């Protein structure tokens, strides 16, 4: 499945390294060592994988119903908005571990509500969800900027666009001394939940049926409208959790650039996983390797950051391109199909 893509990716990156004057074996060795043979490497991998699992799962869930949630980025942001509002206003007022739980719930609500907008517009009016969810990303980003530069600006940080740091009860615990935080476990749990829902419940069956054959679903009495809104809301909620995981697990405050495009990368993660929740684990891991190895390249070889984007772009194109060979059987009669072919 992914293995064919992986092989081709290695091949292309081989050429890439040669083209920029890096000895490929040495590069692989360093990347491999840094990522897999040091404990820091594994930590970085797992930490990077966490938000990708969430967003990939979110997009995959919607895609099971043939709905395209391009708004995971905005839902991520709205999730961080909702949870930060709680963290800033309620700390010290709630018993025990309630604060973090409330933040968790609010992140889901924030992302979920934001996700339900394109869902509702699609269900009720038939407005294309790709467009609405995409546009809402810009709105969410502007909203967060407004808060960071305005009412939520930390007075102590000298007018920089960041909130104050959250109190310890608003922070997710880490595993021992590592940088891996509880968000990873939550991500795995949600993967399991969604997988279970999709294949072991009536609801999941309805979702998949609607995705495969909307007409059949309608005849079977499925209320597609309600389902659409529900699925989008759930998808948004999960994307919101990606935000929760990053902010409460790593940064402990809201600032710019918390998401480096996780919402959009989630689309690629879902695609590579064929929209299957369990597959998301692997493709998120794969994407995480790409991100982390890019950082290694920057540090080890002093590659300018743009080189790193190029590297990622080539790899992604390769992975996407090889997909077809695993998914479909080509009958290569004529590569450029003409009318009359069948």
């Amino acid at each position, binding site marked *: 499945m992914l293995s064919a893509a992986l092989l081709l990716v290695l091949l292309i990156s081989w050429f890439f390294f040669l083209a920029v004057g890096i000895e490929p074996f040495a590069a692989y060795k360093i990347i491999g060592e840094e990522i897999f043979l040091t404990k820091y490497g594994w930590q970085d991998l797992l930490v990077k994988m966490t938000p990708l699992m969430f967003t990939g799962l979110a997009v995959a869930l919607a895609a099971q119903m043939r709905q*395209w949630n*391009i708004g995971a980025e905005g839902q991520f942001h709205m999730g961080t908005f909702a949870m930060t509002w709680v963290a800033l206003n309620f700390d010290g007022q709630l018993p025990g571990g309630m604060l973090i739980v409330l933040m968790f719930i609010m992140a889901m609500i924030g992302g979920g509500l934001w996700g339900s907008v394109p869902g509702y*517009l699609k269900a009720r*009016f*038939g*407005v*294309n969800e*790709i*467009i*609405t969810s*995409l*546009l*809402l990303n*810009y*709105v969410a980003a*502007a*909203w967060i*900027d*407004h808060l960071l*530069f*305005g009412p939520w600006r930390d007075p102590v940080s000298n007018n920089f666009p960041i909130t104050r740091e959250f109190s310890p009860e608003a922070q997710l615990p880490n595993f021992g001394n590592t940088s891996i935080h509880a968000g990873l476990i939550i991500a795995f749990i949600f993967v399991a939940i969604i997988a279970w829902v999709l294949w072991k419940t009536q609801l999941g069956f309805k979702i998949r049926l609607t995705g495969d054959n909307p007409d059949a679903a309608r005849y079977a009495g499925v209320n597609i409208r309600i389902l659409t809104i529900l699925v989008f809301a759930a998808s948004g909620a999960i994307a919101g959790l990606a935000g929760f995981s990053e902010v409460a697990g790593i940064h402990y405050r809201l600032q710019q650039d918390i998401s480096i495009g996780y919402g*959009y*990368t989630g*689309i*690629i993660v879902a*695609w590579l996983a064929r929209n299957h929740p369990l597959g998301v684990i692997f493709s998120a891991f794969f994407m995480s390797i790409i991100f982390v190895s890019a950082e290694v390249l920057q540090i080890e070889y002093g590659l*300018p*950051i*743009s*080189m*790193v*984007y*190029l*590297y*990622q*772009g*080539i790899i*992604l*194109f390769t992975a*996407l*391109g090889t*997909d*077809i060979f695993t998914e*479909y059987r080509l009958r290569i009669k004529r*590569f*450029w*199909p*003409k*009318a009359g*072919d*069948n």
Partner: protein
Amino acid sequence: MEFFIQILIAAVVMGTPLLFATLGGVISERAGVINLGMEGLMLVGALVAFVVMLNTENYFYAVAAAALASGLVSIIHGVVCLMLRASQIASGLALTFFGTGLSGLFGDKLTGETVEPLSRIPIPGLHAIPVLGPVLFNHDVLVYFSYICVGLSWWLLYKTRLGLNIRSMGEAPEVCDSLGLSVMGYRFFALIVGGMLVGIGGAYFPLALTPFWVDGITGGRGWIAVALVIFAFWDPVKALGGAYLFGLALALELRLQVLGIEMSPYFLKMLPFVLTILVLTLVTIRNNRRGIQVMPAALGKVFFRGEKH
């Protein structure tokens, strides 16, 4: 009043790269191909334009080279999503990475170099019209070219057979296919032409806006263009209005400070997008009643002969 006119002039200037990119997006999406990689293509266009300008000091070569380069790069997107049938969305995102990286890589050595920016050429007679004159007719040659492109795109899409076929590809590719038209061929064409326009939009940055090279010279405008295509309802003429409207928002962002208005610039940023969603919804509702499609029906969908998707 003078200040007001200055703002409008800035709106046109800021809106011009958006206009080119949006026109490119319109043509490509009319054929059914979404291209989310516009930011990457814009950067490629910007880089190539800068390099060629630096070496030849010839604006025409620079723009032509930019168009050529971005057209070529968009072929990759076409191969991956049209031939290899990958998701157009995912492929477009990969294109963003690719284009950004390519431009940054080759531009690395160029920091500190400057080129001579395009000069303003007032159109004789027209530029003296009060208000509209300086706002529309006292600009550089690329702005005027953008006006021509709007007209050309409109003529192409609505008044030629080629345009009709392109639009059909976006509405009902199966029908076209059974009529003997090459879906892949037309889509590739639209994608490449669209990509070239996006590249010209990118070229506007080093040639007119910031005549020195910096990484990320386009400042995310490619993404705005993605939304603009929708705002323009896939129509070249509406693209003109939309581009200048967004350009106005960009121009106001800073100038509001000068006026002493304490409005959060971020609300200003949100407004165009919220507006787009509202308008899109309203038009969809109205068109549903009339049974007309608002957007190209086959947009973003992979085309397989004989399969329902």
